[in-house]
């Protein structure tokens, strides 16, 4: 059986999409000869030429803005922002145009754009290299937001995102870039808006995404030894949210803990807590708890493991809700 890192799987998804559809373009800072600072675009320029895979100047608003024009000209842009913390200059073009263009033109245009953003913390990175930007995008109507948690699903989700007719913000958990997964790359499997039950359990559901999936699975292991069995839900897609699977989980376990790296206030945990109340209040046997980053700027390397949800923080939250 083959083995892939997430970087290799993403690279393969880009390569396959470009081979399949000659209108697909890949661009961004350093994505050409270098293959991106994380090598996700490695070899693509050599294979598809420098017209379809090209470096841009350091201009994130410009990168997002040319996606709009290229879409109108019938191309499918797959753009890279070099890091989470450097995607903010592009927000205006994304919020004011990419998200709104189809609506503005009464459906006469569409923006089949993918913006890839290496995101989240856990890599002992410098300031601005550990941001969790999902709330900015998930709150912006008109966008879809996707976060893979492992190599094989990263291949699937990126392939689906590139094929999607709506603009997709594709957040790549950097701390999982080099983690290996065994299996075959395939597009078949759960569609883009579906959550994925990564572990079954009855006592509590851990709702999470990205790199925190692994951490929640670890926490579930620890808890299993205490005979507390946890269901682990990998959301995969933050917009749309898989409300059915969320509601089903609450009906099954009655208790939910949401885990993410982003700061607590208005992180995805807030939305999930609110949706769960709306969808399945009667099944809730304890408050939905949130184990998240804190409401402070992402810290330096020396403190990041005190900031990120730890197995200990997750297990202690689960213990709290199961004994509620």
């Amino acid at each position, binding site marked *: 059986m083959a083995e892939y890192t997430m970087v290799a799987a993403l690279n393969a998804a880009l390569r396959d999409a470009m081979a399949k559809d000659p209108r697909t373009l890949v661009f961004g800072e350093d994505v050409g000869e270098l293959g991106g600072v994380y090598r996700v675009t490695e070899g693509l320029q050599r294979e598809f030429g420098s017209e379809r895979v090209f470096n841009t100047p350091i201009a994130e608003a410009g990168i997002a803005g040319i996606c709009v024009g*290229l879409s109108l000209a019938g191309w499918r842009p797959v753009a890279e922002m070099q890091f989470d913390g450097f995607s903010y200059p592009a927000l*205006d073009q994304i919020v004011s145009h990419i998200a709104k263009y189809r*609506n503005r033109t009464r459906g006469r245009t*569409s923006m089949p754009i993918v913006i890839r953003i290496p995101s989240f913390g856990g890599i002992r990175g410098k300031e601005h290299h550990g941001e969790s930007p999902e709330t900015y995008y998930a709150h912006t109507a008109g966008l879809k937001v996707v976060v893979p948690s492992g190599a094989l699903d990263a291949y699937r989700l990126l392939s689906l995102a590139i094929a999607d*007719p709506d603009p997709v913000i594709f957040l790549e958990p950097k701390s999982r870039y080099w983690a290996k997964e065994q299996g075959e790359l395939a597009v078949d499997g759960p569609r883009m808006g579906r959550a994925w039950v990564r572990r079954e359990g009855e006592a509590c559901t851990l709702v999470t995404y990205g790199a925190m999936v692994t951490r929640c699975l670890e926490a579930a292991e620890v808890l299993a030894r205490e005979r507390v069995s946890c269901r682990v839900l990998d959301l995969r897609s933050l917009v749309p949210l898989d409300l059915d699977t969320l509601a089903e989980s609450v009906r099954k376990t009655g208790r939910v803990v949401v885990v993410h790296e982003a700061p607590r206030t208005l992180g995805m945990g807030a939305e999930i807590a609110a949706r769960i109340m709306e969808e399945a209040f009667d099944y809730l046997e304890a408050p939905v708890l949130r184990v998240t980053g804190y409401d402070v700027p992402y810290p330096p390397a020396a403190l990041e493991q005190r900031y990120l949800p730890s197995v200990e923080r997750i297990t202690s939250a689960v213990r709290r809700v199961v004994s509620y």
Partner: protein
Amino acid sequence: MVIHEDPYDVAPVRLVAPDGTAVGDTDVGLKPDELRDLLRLMILSRRLDRECMALQRQGELTVYPPFEGQEAAQVGSAFALEPDDFVFPSFRELAAAIVRGVDVVEYLQYHRGTWHGGPYDPIASRFAPICVPVATQIVHAVGWAMGAKLDRLPVCSLAYFGDGATSEGDFHEAANMAAVFGAPAILFCQNNGWAISVPLREQAAGPIHTRAEGYGMPGVLVDGNDVLAVYSVTRAAAERARAGEGPTLIEALTYRMGPHSTADDATKYRSADEVKRWRERDPIDRYLKHLLASGAADESFVADCEDEAKEWVADVRAGITSLGPPPVDELFGFAYVEPPESLERDRRSSTEAPDG
């Protein structure tokens, strides 16, 4: 006080003087009926602009941004393009839209408040949606031009923007990318002296067209109230673009005769005298005198134009005033090709229980 009419000490490209006399080679390659058409389009534009001001006062439009005084800048430049070229307007380019054949009743839905920036068909009319966030459309124009270049099409894009827009980062990123990628794009700045209440000198300390050199593209300063000069420099820029020679920055010196929009009171920040001096440089008067003097048009042609304008404007009025609100369902209909289930539920609950 800096007088906007001559903000720089370099003379703009000018073919016809304010009094209508030729001061350059006025043979810009247009046939007589095309020369007349320029006049006709400027007259139609002005009549519609004034009608829109009236419609707004009568409550038939929400806020309206008039372009009176800028007819030559818009008509001359839009006229220089080919049908397959693509225009990226800001929010004041109704005259350019008229030249491009955009359905103006559809266009005015935007100002009526019944739909957003692109109620007309932007792809079919090669005229992007009205774009309000200042300078953002310039980047789109560059992206479109890059795409056209990849397709090896002999076309170009043209982005309209104001003097104020040149202060935005997006102007810069667009200009730099256009130059780096050799995009067939024309960056067309209508320097009308004001950005709402802010005069040019508080917006920029150097002449806008001189920015071009730093980007590695040609910069042209043109008399924006001289329709032939505008046509001619735009035509040249389009030909450069088509020939694979990359982008051009054009600065057209013109003037916004009216307020920034119907919500604005321009007397709060500028002198009647300045406005009066620009009235003397009116782009339509000037070109009319020139055409009459050169014999390319006569009084009866002008009368015909005015008649056509009257009738057309009445039709547009009838079209726009008869427009009702869009169906509520449209609120939900266009945000996504494949809307999230949660949004579908909102749609259902909103339309099933419209007051609930």
